[in-house]
């Protein structure tokens, strides 16, 4: 590494520390079985599959585990027929 590059770079250790803190906070939580985001994901998918047959290919789950907030995006394509069938079932019940 030449001197110019050496001085032009900011320290990377703080970034490493921050990334690890966030990651480990989530991992330690999930070791006790309480990763909230992961739990939500599982439950949301279970609820949806109670009402309609989920086509696995049409489900996309994205997570971003953050320090203050995590985001969970569950994208489910609901075909018109499945929606109709679910409505029909409810009426019959």
């Amino acid at each position, binding site marked *: *590494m030449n001197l110019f590059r050496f001085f032009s770079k900011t320290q990377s250790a703080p970034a490493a520390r921050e990334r690890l803190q966030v990651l480990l906070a989530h991992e330690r939580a999930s070791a006790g079985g309480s990763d909230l985001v992961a739990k939500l994901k599982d439950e949301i998918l279970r609820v949806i599959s109670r009402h309609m047959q989920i086509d*696995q290919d049409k489900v996309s789950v994205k997570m971003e585990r953050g320090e203050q907030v995590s985001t969970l995006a569950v994208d489910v394509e609901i075909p018109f027929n499945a929606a109709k069938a679910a409505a029909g079932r409810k009426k019959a019940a």
Partner: protein
Amino acid sequence: MGKVIVVTSGKGGVGKTTSSAALGAALAQNGEKVVVVDFDVGLRNLDLVMGAERRVVYDLVNVIQGEAKLPQALIRDKRVETLYLLPASQTRDKDNLTPEGVEKVIAALKKAFDWVICDSPAGIERGATLAMRHADIAIVVTNPEVSSVRDSDRIIGLLDSKTLKAENGERMEKHLLLTRYDPARAERGDMLKVDDVLEILSIPLLGIIPESMDVLRASNLGSPVTLADEGSAPSRAYFDAVRRLKGEALPVTVPGERRSFFGKLFGRKAA
């Protein structure tokens, strides 16, 4: 059909994960469609090195067990759009990797990608043998140090016996990637020489990656070194390695020396 590469070594801590990320990113930076697959079930780290650790939803074991479809488990890199990661499971153990499951996943990946790079766990057990099983090309990562060279020799033996290629009587293409090469220590004579390692292992040299702070910085930032700093010495070495992988006859230069290896090495008995 894509090519399957296994990045392997026997010994841990030699630079397999670093190299899987760097080579995968370098290929993708050249426009190739690449997926890097973490086979280190229980001790995943490729997600960290690639900066995707907060985005892991499903993993290789979920796909093998039918709990998720392959596209759902693939994580697309935020910087290079043709680069994908298939993470390993952190919570389950290696027994969840079944030979049939791995075969299916690799077959599907080969159809969708130009390159499938399998980051092998250390050791010679199930995880390592499954990672190499379907490989077309093996990259043997070695440090210029006695125990690493010995373990690489052992791995080369496994590549020539335990892989599908070997069982079908075909030749496994093997390349040596010498990593963590320290020119200062080489100068002092405290490190095995490149020629010595090559003579012992007698497989062609893909590249020499210098020991460098840039690698550490990149992993701190969660970026393959070729993306974090394209012009750094290790990045240039990885970019050159990728050109050789693609068949270009590019001489290998020893970091800190003007000498370069050519002809001699590629002319050596290509094992």
